């Protein structure tokens, strides 16, 4: 599903290149659950953003379902990421002005899904995540765990093939964290590929394999 060959990322600042990622080579197959670990500044989030097509590598090749992502323009990237990838963030990133229902509806609204189908899908997800009672609340009326639950629900509503989770439990109590990790595990079991970035060894264990990053290099 994902092939990275010699991916590098650096920032230029007055002729000094600051490397964030160096010579990353890896392959992730469909249905895998991969955990990326590493200390702060090791380049974990940058790697995730490049995989998620929110950011572009400075060098190297990126194949997504055998398509050359590194050769695509912004619009193609945007379309690809929109239809295949869902994101979950440490700080949830729900839209504060929208209710739980509306937050869930927004991704498929942007994909121009018809109203009737939209309603059905949101209802289904609300039901699945057991948050029907919360549907008219705003994010700031929810606890952290509930918010992350909504964020995960929003990430999968467009039925992505890949979920990228950037420290999904970083702001949560261990109990709530566990709940989210179980949820991800369940999604993986249903066939969704998952890549998560995490600090916690315990959470990393949920994955099939662990990739360790150190100063931009993959630690073998």
């Amino acid at each position: 599903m994902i092939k990275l060959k010699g991916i590098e990322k650096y920032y230029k600042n007055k002729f000094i290149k600051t490397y964030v990622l160096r010579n990353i080579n890896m392959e992730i197959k469909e249905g895998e659950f991969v955990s990326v670990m590493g200390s702060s500044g090791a380049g974990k989030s940058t790697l995730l953003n490049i995989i998620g097509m929110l950011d572009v590598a400075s060098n190297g090749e990126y194949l997504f379902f055998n398509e050359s992502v590194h050769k695509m323009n912004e619009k193609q990237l945007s379309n690809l990421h929109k239809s295949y990838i869902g994101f979950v963030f440490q700080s949830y990133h729900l839209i504060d002005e929208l209710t739980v229902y509306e937050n869930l509806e927004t991704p498929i609204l942007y994909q121009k899904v018809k109203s009737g189908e939209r309603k059905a899908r949101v209802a289904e997800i609300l039901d699945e995540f057991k948050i029907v009672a919360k549907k008219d609340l705003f994010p700031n009326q929810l606890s952290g765990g509930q918010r992350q639950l909504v964020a995960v629900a929003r990430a999968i509503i467009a039925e992505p093939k890949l979920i990228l989770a950037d420290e999904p439990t970083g702001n949560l109590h261990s109990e709530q964290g566990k709940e989210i990790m179980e949820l991800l595990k369940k999604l993986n079991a249903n066939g969704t590929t998952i890549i998560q970035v995490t600090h916690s060894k315990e959470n990393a264990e949920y994955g099939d394999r662990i990739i360790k990053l150190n100063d931009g290099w993959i630690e073998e």
Partner: protein
Amino acid sequence: MLKSYIITAFRNIKKHKTFSLINILGLSIGMTVSLLILIFVINEFSYDNFYPNKDRIYRIAVKWGQENNIMKFAGSMPAISPAINDAFPGAIAAARVLKAYNGITVERKQKKIKEENACYADAEYFKVFALPFISGNPETALAEPYSVVITKSIAEKYFGNTNPVGETLTIEGDLYKVTGLINDIPENTHLNLNMFISYKTLAAKGEKDEHPWNSWGSVYNYVLLKDNVSPQSLKQALGKELEANAGEWFASRIEFVIQNLTEIHWINDFRGDSGPKQNKMYVLVFLIAAIVILAIACFNYVNLSTARYLERMKDVGIRKVIGANRSQIVTQFLIESLMITFLSIFISFILFQLFRSSAYSFIETKIILNENYFFSLSAVILFMIIIVGFIAGVYPALFLSKFSPTEIIKNKVVSGVKHFSVRKVLVVVQFIMSILLIFGTVVIYKQIDFMLNTSLGYDKENVVILNLISPESKNKYQTLKEKLSEHSGVKAVSGAFTVPGINSRENMGVKVIDGSNEDIINLQTVAVDYDFVKAMGIKIIKGRNFSEKFGSDINRSVILNETAVKMLNINNPIGEKIGMPKGNNKMEEVTIVGVVKDFNLQSLHNKITPLLLYLEPEKYIAMLVKYDPESQKDVLAYINKTWGEVLPGEKPNYIFLEDSYKKLYKSETKTEKLLVFFAVLAIFISSLGLLGLTSFAAAKRVKEIGIRKVLGASVSNIVTLLSKEFVLLVVVSTLIASPVAYILMNKWLQNFAYRININVWMFLISGSMALAIALFTVSIIAIKAALSNPINSLRSE
């Protein structure tokens, strides 16, 4: 999708109350002003637009005189229209109109009413002005004497709902046949008429049966030209006709002016014109003011929206991550700006309805409420929603939708150099506009002050002008004068043909009779009475005033002003003889008995003209009464009483000379008031924006302020920190605005022959006023931020 956009926009508006309030307040004010002005402008441009063939209808006016002494008249020779109908193939028809200036008395059955809007019109009138007839034949309606065409409202007044055509009306005692019925003519016309009497009636009554080429009065000539016939060719043909009929001397002094029908509303320097007039410049200034005020309000929106980028960035980022296109984000922002605009126009519309009548009566415009008005109102509102919604919304939408999601998700500080300078530029532009308006106000105020207080060569205080309007009052002038002079508080009484503030003027060509110079020199001549010089407090510098002691001053003596003496080039004017035309263009010999110091009978827009005073009781149109200020009340009461005794049933129509003089600057005084109003609005809306910007800046730097305070910064340090940038912007605005202001106002001042100089202090005043207001606004926020306890801002991290 749209529903989601609207919900989000609505919640955003509700959530950011300060931002929304500032924008809605600014935009509502801006749009109210624009609404008032646009409706006014549309109304002004609608004059005479309803006539079919309006582009081919012209009025023939005349200019009389040579070089620097030209007078313009709206009326022209009664011979013109018949001549065009006879011999100018380029015209479809031409018709004369003579308004019945003193009204006509119309009688039918028990009713006897004075009608003010009647006229005498040629049979061709309805060929030129193709107004549809409800009843009657337009071809023949005005062909016979004692025929009259009336409008629907007149018909209803005298005939009720029955068809008046074929019936009779008694007008001024004669019996007239009603030959046509037309709809009421819309009010937005320079010819507001409701009764058309056949022109031939004048001849039948034995008046004005001639078609002179060498004289003219209040008769207007209108012509409908054929397609592709230029008004220029008509002008040439008329010039030839004039020379053939009135001689070369006369023809060389006449220039025909062919005015298009729709232009007449804008032409305001022709004597004896008809209908309300408007100054195109004035309307243009209004239009610019509307655009400026609206632009300032839009700039606030742009500035405040982009200033919120930190807040909005996150939202945009999330939306992009979960799949929004840039165009969807742009739409979201545009919907929000359209909603703000919509709310504002709603408030504007209420304000518009509230202030409409007072605003229009202040600028003395009558807005005609017909179906066109409602159409234009809706069109203007729609136009404004779209224009303002987009102008204010597009830049913020494009700017805010630009951020790439990673930058936002990572909460990286976005380099904001480019947009920040846009914001600065907009603030500078806002303040330039405000400063221009303040500066304009200052200059106009000083110029008006100068005109009202400068010495005019006469004493305008303690003089009352009594208008001699009715023929009876003119006849009883001597009696009135004698009676009024009896009061001990009255110092002098004089009749006059020209008084300041009343638009009457007579010019004559005179020449010096000593054989040295045969040139005819054009002077303004003023028919006065013996005590004119005394009543006006004019200084005699050579010779003497008119005096009854000499018994022979009427028809024999004249007084000149200094400018006239200079123009006639006489070294020893007293006793010199000059020839002036009397009666049938014959030169009569008169003697110069005195020379007065120059005085300005007109407004200071004009240079002092060469003047000749002569005694001619028949020409008086007003009486001047100079009184003792201590007995003003007594004198006025006495005038009232005496007037009633001499002219039973009449009341004196009077105005103080001082007020009559002030009236000359009515338009300037009005402009000044409006400019003050616009300046206040402009600076208010600009300050609102500044208030918003400062509070965003303060919010963004709340942590910095906290740290600085912990490190020992004083309140004034913090206020300086926050104000410095905005103060600098206002200073830059002043520097840019000053030369522009100088050029604009210097141009305005060229309208005046006597004017003030633009001084450095005027720039200083305008600039420091803007600065003071800006500083005050910024300080409100800055002081609040500086006084806040640093613990609060630092703990929040």
